[in-house]
């Protein structure tokens, strides 16, 4: 029972250090404040305990004191707010160029897929020293992706994407918990994050039974569902050309502009009518209930890949099925 007993969680990401620093500061502050109050109460209780000849002295109050002990805590609180907000801002802003892992949560397991195509269940392998961003959704109820060693947690919702990111700093195996109550086996919805040295990670990647990258899978689904009939790679299609769309600003038919992020691509597939691109008709069929979350993720990865700067001059055409689509 005392094996591997400890009082502090492993610290294995860049965020963890920041969170711990604020936490330690707060522990110190809270200890100081509670000790101050406990000591005062104890001293008063003993010093002014009831005994013969000691009369209570009636004191009305003191405005100076009241203002001091309202304003001083207020400034301390604002300072804590600022510090906490700073960390949170970092936690919610994934750095550019992070490797992407798609996460689908369901009762009661985690399904993860790397961009390169490797699928994992309840296990996530990542290299040390690299930014990793997770794009997450749920197939049923709300779950929450929680890795204590990284100090990150993000609820995973059905029907939309949420994201989280981390930068692992220490190789090892860490808990992955579901932190939002999700039904019978909530406490069984646990897994592990394996942080590996980059070389080991490469070995693991190549050893896995990946069947093509997610973008490649996505390209196949894109064909299979007939998306490519309208979303052509010229300006003749009935739907917008998707090259370079991801990450750009899109002008909508009703005058609004949105950034084409994962959420937008997802929404446009599932419920195309809600945000129609300017100049196009809302003729695309609804894919809600037709594509699975896994297929959806692959499609998103594919659309994203259409905006990546070409790795080599000849590398891109293989992914674009435009050749067949010329009239």
């Amino acid at each position, binding site marked *: 029972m005392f094996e591997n007993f400890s009082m502090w969680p492993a610290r294995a990401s860049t965020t963890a250090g920041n969170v711990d620093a604020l936490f330690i500061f707060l522990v110190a502050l809270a200890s100081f404040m509670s000790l101050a109050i406990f000591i005062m109460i104890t001293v008063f209780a003993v010093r002014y305990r009831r005994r013969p000849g000691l009369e209570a002295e009636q004191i009305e109050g003191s405005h100076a004191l009241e203002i001091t002990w309202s304003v001083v805590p207020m400034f301390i609180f604002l300072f804590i707010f600022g510090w906490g907000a700073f960390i949170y801002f970092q936690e919610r802003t994934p750095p550019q160029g992070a490797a992407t892992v798609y996460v689908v949560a369901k009762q009661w397991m985690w399904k993860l897929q790397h961009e390169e195509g490797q699928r994992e269940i309840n296990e996530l392998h990542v290299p040390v020293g690299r930014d990793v961003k997770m794009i997450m959704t749920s197939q049923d109820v709300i779950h929450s992706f929680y890795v204590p060693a990284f100090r990150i947690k993000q609820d995973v919702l059905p029907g939309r994407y949420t994201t989280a990111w981390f930068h692992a700093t220490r190789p090892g195996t860490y808990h992955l918990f579901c932190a939002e109550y999700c039904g019978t086996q909530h406490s069984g919805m646990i897994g592990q994050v394996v942080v590996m040295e980059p070389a080991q990670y490469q070995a693991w990647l190549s050893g896995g039974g990946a069947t093509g990258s997610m973008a490649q899978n996505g390209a196949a689904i894109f064909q299979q569902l007939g998306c490519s009939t309208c979303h052509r790679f010229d300006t003749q299609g009935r739907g917008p050309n998707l090259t370079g769309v991801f990450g750009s600003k899109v002008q909508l038919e009703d005058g609004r502009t949105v950034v084409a992020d994962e959420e937008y691509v997802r929404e446009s597939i599932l*419920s195309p*009518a*809600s945000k*129609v691109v300017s100049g196009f008709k*809302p003729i695309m069929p*609804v894919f809600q209930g037709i594509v699975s979350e896994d297929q959806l993720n692959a499609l998103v990865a594919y659309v994203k890949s259409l905006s990546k700067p070409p790795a080599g001059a000849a590398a891109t055409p293989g992914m674009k099925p435009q050749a067949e689509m010329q009239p």
Partner: protein
Amino acid sequence: MSDSDSMAGGSLVAEHEHGPELRHHFATVEQQREASTLGMWLFLATEIMFFGGLFCTYLIYRYWYYDEFAAGSRSINIWMGAINTGVLICSSLTVALSVRAAQTGKRKTLIVLLILTLLFGVAFLGIKGVEWYQKFEEHHVPGLNFSAADLIRDYPQLHIDPHHVQLYFSLYFAMTGLHALHMVIGIGVFLFLLYESWKGRYTPAYHTPIEIGGLYWHFVDIVWIYLFPLLYLIDRKPL
């Protein structure tokens, strides 16, 4: 709710300031009346927050799914909504006048006005019922027979996802339904007031139940004054 107490208190004809309608724990009739009135206003404040939860839900989804809300709104009968608004405003007038009749001690006028109020209330519910029945015929009742196929056919200009239309109709029925429930309670309260007036229990000196019953009725009217534009008038401009 708050009126039941003072009503029970007024079980006998009040002859003068310290008539038997004064309950034991109040010092004066004035204090009792002020307590009842404040109580009613507080109750109305909780009612505002109760409908507030529904309005909040409405607001968010209307913001998200404007087109579907517009289509749903177009499909309900604006004229029935407008006539019902008129009916409720008329009933509010008769309620206001009945308070006046009580203040000035005109028992017969009071009774006539209360009957009129009840008639308007029943008329409102009747029209509401017809409207709901139409929705049922059009297969627009969520959880029962819902289909948005007709809206998709009729409004090709709007982007319509049937689920989101269903949200509109869920809120439509929840809000008009709870409003109608309040009307039913109001009619119950006014039947009681009518009975008491018939017995001549309200005088210029003591008619608090009429007053606070009236406050409740006006509040239910105000809720409808907002429901009408929010549900019926979302988007009526020519397409």
